[in-house]
């Protein structure tokens, strides 16, 4: 079977994220990396391959993003993907969640995967719904936040936590599954894999290459626009203690609790 893994390049966790006042979009300058949640999706694909129950012919990493997003793809390949696809087109800039999901679905259509995996959320946009958008376009069943997945006879038996506790859902393939970060412990890439990643095939595709309707993407094609940014009502910031002498720290915590009559 063929597995496609959706990945995204996001600002590094150490970068202070901010909105560019000129465009109303996230300022993506500065150090960028593979969305950490996506490493769990790649690992899940690798574990299916290595599990041996279901033969996996190919694992393909797919991203949509501006030039420079190759970095995330190289990382994805170093973690196990066989090749990667970079959907990159100025016309896609500023796409909202629905337009992004539509665009990714178009790439996936041309790949015809048996399973699409993605991470539970992106570290930057705080979005965890792209899988559902992609699935509807591909007319595939889908489930998000999956923390356990067993594959047998073209059915993925998935467990995930929802509003009332844990659900177990049997999902027929082909399907779109977003995995939670508890599903596995992603491996570290070997030095050899890191060195070899740039040699693996990386296809760059423009919107027209995969049949994306330019009227449905980008700023103009998106059905929702975000703007009018404002600061939330400010909350008095709390006191911060750096623990240097733990006895002193503890004494301060006790005093703080006493002051507020929180000691039983």
């Amino acid at each position: 079977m063929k597995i496609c893994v959706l990945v995204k390049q996001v600002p590094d966790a150490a970068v202070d994220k901010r909105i560019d006042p000129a465009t109303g979009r996230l300022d993506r300058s500065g150090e960028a990396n593979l969305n950490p949640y996506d490493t769990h999706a790649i690992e899940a694909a690798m574990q299916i391959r290595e599990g041996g129950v279901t033969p996996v012919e190919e694992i393909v990493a797919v991203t949509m993003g501006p030039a420079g997003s190759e970095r995330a793809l190289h990382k994805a390949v170093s973690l196990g993907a066989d090749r990667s696809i970079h959907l990159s087109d100025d016309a896609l800039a500023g796409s909202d969640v629905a337009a992004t999901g539509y665009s990714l679905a178009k790439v996936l259509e041309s790949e015809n995967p048996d399973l699409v995996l993605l991470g539970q959320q992106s570290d930057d946009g705080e979005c965890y719904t792209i899988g559902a958008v992609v699935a509807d376009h591909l007319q595939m069943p889908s489930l998000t936040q999956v923390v356990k997945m067993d594959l047998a006879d073209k059915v993925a038996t998935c467990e995930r936590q929802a509003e009332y506790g844990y659900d177990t859902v049997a999902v027929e393939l082909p399907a779109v599954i977003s995995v939670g970060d508890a599903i596995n412990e992603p491996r570290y890439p070997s030095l050899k894999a890191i060195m070899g990643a740039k040699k693996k095939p990386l296809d760059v595709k423009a919107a027209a290459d995969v049949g994306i309707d330019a009227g449905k993407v980008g700023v103009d094609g998106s059905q929702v626009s975000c703007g009018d940014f404002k600061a939330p009502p400010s909350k008095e910031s709390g006191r911060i203690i750096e623990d240097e002498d733990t006895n002193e720290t503890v004494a301060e915590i006790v005093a703080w609790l006493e002051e507020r009559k929180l000691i039983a």
Partner: protein
Amino acid sequence: MSSVLVYALHKDGVINKNSLGAISEGTRVAGELGGQCDVVVVGGADLTDETLAALGNYGASKVYKVDGPEGLSQPVIDAMAQLIKTNGYSNALFGGGLLGFEIGAGLAARLEAGVTMEVTAIRVENGKAVAERPILQDSQISTSTYRGDVGIIIGRINAFEVKETGGTAAVEQLPVDFSPFSLKAKMVTRGEQRGADVNIEDASVLVAGGRGLGEAEGFKMCDDLAEVLGGAVAATRAVVDAGWFPYAGQIGQTGRAVAPKLYFAAGISGAIQHKVGMQGSENIIAINKDSNAPIFEFSDLGIVGDLNKILPKLTEALAAKKAG
């Protein structure tokens, strides 16, 4: 027509509280838009006409009942897409949780509509609903305006207040032709409670542990501290998923929402999905070794340090104080 369609989540014949909040909010917004608020439910015989008619008490005009599998997103997308196409709603609205996110996003794809999630407030401007959503760890609020005919709004958990207005709703059975792919996911078991049944809702002090405890045994430190503080122990999803702590003690978006007098967070980063379940606490203390952890943004007292060093000593000091 500028009416609002709300999806109501349920289990065992009881409608979810966040859905009731969404119905109240949908009714308010529909009122400003000059339309009505209707509700759709998808499920089995446990949804009685009485239960559904009672949604009128939160403002619903009409409740559409669809026979279908519960707890899965795609059958609901089919039902809502059908209703929106025939009745022409201007907005689809969901309370916080998880399923509503999947339905709302899938519906956006189906209808080629805009969707905003984690919404905390809805306003009506120029005859259209606009949605406010906090972004970047709640440091900014962005406003979504919708093009097109339909705007999809997914609320943040507990964002919409439940308001009882009195009244009953008309209940109508709605036949839906489900898409073939919508029936390819099948619920095997729903809402399994993993781990012991711990009670955290009545506690006035909660000591909550996260992944920073390092291992399941780390909860012993929380137990000990909770005992001297006269409280109970709670947890994040990360440690519940890992099997370190029972689901019944989980705080957050897909767990419980609490507002104790004291919330003591140990080794918790402070993700939004956790914050939404505890931000109403009167006093919040956090211990985290990372001075950039988001939890410090909403703590009253933040300790930057190693919980393994601090927790045992703190417990000891409090115990000594009690004894003395």
